């Protein structure tokens, strides 16, 4: 490979573009978060007051706990189901395996707005879910109107859209396990269950961790699904942090507090991004 300015010239349009559109705004927001800003009018310098508001607001504090539940339970469900499916598909070959992957990936390919809307219709009082519940002898449930069931519905839809993604990544990990290792295990008399626990699972650690980090990021930042499915309600039952962020900005037009909250969310993201980059060895 030769040292050449041409490389820098080829790369710089993309770097400049990313810096201008994605990176500089982050610094701009840190600046705004130190000011009082309503309706896009930059007011007085207030120091850390917006951050104090973020950490003392009851709304924001309650939304943090909901966010963590939604993020981690959603993640757990996707990873478990994704791993099960990956194990199953791994034993299938050719076209069958392909069709199964396609079917499982569908929710990830359609938009979150459409996915959430379709489920909203199914969860409706007169919808398919209540019909099935009645058929098997249960009472109707107002899924999205009840503060206890609405978070369950939100978690379900979030896990639903990521199962396929988890499966594809874990399947790729499974495929990279050398056949000899499995055979060696079988020769040594390990049954399928032990082969899975002692040979496959340890080798799947990296793909499962990488998938988990991506899904954590994606669930933690998901605003489309709560927006369409529940709108944060009923009450504040599904008011995840991103809904609160959206409201601070585009319902209360309190951009100072919204910027401070964005910065907090960004710090969590950067933590996850760092883990991700250390795990996935991108090399040039």
């Amino acid at each position, binding site marked *: 490979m030769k040292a050449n300015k041409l490389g820098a010239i080829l790369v710089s349009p993309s770097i400049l573009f990313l810096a201008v559109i994605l990176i500089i705004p982050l610094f701009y927001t840190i600046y705004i978060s130190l000011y009082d800003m309503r309706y896009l009018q930059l007011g007085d310098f207030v120091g850390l007051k917006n951050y104090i508001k973020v950490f003392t607001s009851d709304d924001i504090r309650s939304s943090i706990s909901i966010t963590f539940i939604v993020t981690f339970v959603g993640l757990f469900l996707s990873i478990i189901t994704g791993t099960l499916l990956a194990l199953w598909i791994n034993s299938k070959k050719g076209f069958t395996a392909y069709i199964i992957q396609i079917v499982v990936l569908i929710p990830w390919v359609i938009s979150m707005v459409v996915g959430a809307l379709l489920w909203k219709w199914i969860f409706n009082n007169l919808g*398919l879910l209540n019909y099935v519940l009645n058929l098997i002898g249960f009472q109707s449930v107002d899924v999205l109107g009840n503060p206890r069931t609405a978070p369950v519905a939100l978690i379900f839809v979030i896990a639903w859209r990521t199962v396929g993604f988890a499966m594809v990544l874990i399947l790729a990990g499974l495929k990279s396990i050398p056949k000899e290792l499995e055979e060696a295990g079988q020769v040594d008399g390990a049954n399928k269950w032990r082969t899975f626990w002692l040979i496959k699972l340890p080798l799947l650690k990296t793909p499962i961790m990488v*998938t988990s980090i991506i899904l954590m990021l994606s669930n933690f930042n998901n605003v489309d699904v709560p927006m369409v499915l529940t709108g944060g309600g009923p009450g504040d039952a599904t008011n995840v942090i991103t809904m609160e962020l959206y409201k601070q900005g585009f319902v209360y037009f309190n951009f100072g507090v919204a910027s401070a909250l964005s910065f907090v969310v960004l710090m969590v993201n950067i933590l996850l991004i760092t883990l991700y980059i250390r795990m996935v060895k991108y090399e040039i």
Partner: protein
Amino acid sequence: MRSKGLQFTFSGSLKSIILFVTFGLVVIVNIVPILWGVKTSIMSPSDIFFYPPKLFNFEATFEHYIRIFNGGYLRTFLNSIFYCVASIIFGLFLGILAAYGFDRFLFRFKKPMFYLVVFCIPLSIGSSALIIPNYLYMSELSFLNEWYTLPILYTAYNLPMAIWIIKSGVETIPVEVDEAATIDGASRFYFIFGMLAVLCRPALAAAALFIFLGAWNEFILSSIMINSPDLRPVQLAIYQYLGFFGQEWGPLTAAASTAIIPSIIVFTFLGRMLISGLTAGSVKS
């Protein structure tokens, strides 16, 4: 399983039953919402709210489709196609230059520049931390609510992944090919867009597919950046119908069913590419 005869053990059959049931449930849970939505979209309003739901005994009607398309839905569809095409062209143009630069040359600050790109891949997954920054910054630049607002953002969000995917394509082309081309006197620019692009078609197609899905399915940025109905993309239109039609599930499901057609078509034909792109982009470890 059955052909294995004596090896058909209890634990083996239990495991295959669990896996089969899991898969059965996933198929139902993945396909049924879409079929149910499509079915609702072709039912008359009175049939939709008939309880218990009519499964097959209804008369199909296209009234909801006619209603939304008369109400300007087609415009939002065309807007979205424009946003996708613009982002794909811009993204592939920048992406192939950067991928080639990163793969074939050494230059100052190469590492930090590359890590910036890598950092932006997960950064754009966590997009909700970016909505306020992007909004305030675009409004500072007076870039809000313009025809180019969304293409710029969609390109920026999907470019890092595109560079990574295209770079994996460029890697497979031997260096001798560029050397032969430069000796022949073909200009570098012609080489990149004429020869290299043709040689890494699969990688470019995979990158285009990701940009397409990202741009077609994006909602939250468009909801804060775009005000005028003439510029609305399709997902934003569906969200606004939710407020406008309220409990009228006919037009809502009609809009939703139409919006998934492009994704499903693209996915059915290029699914294999999507799956390989996904795994290349994330678990290259």
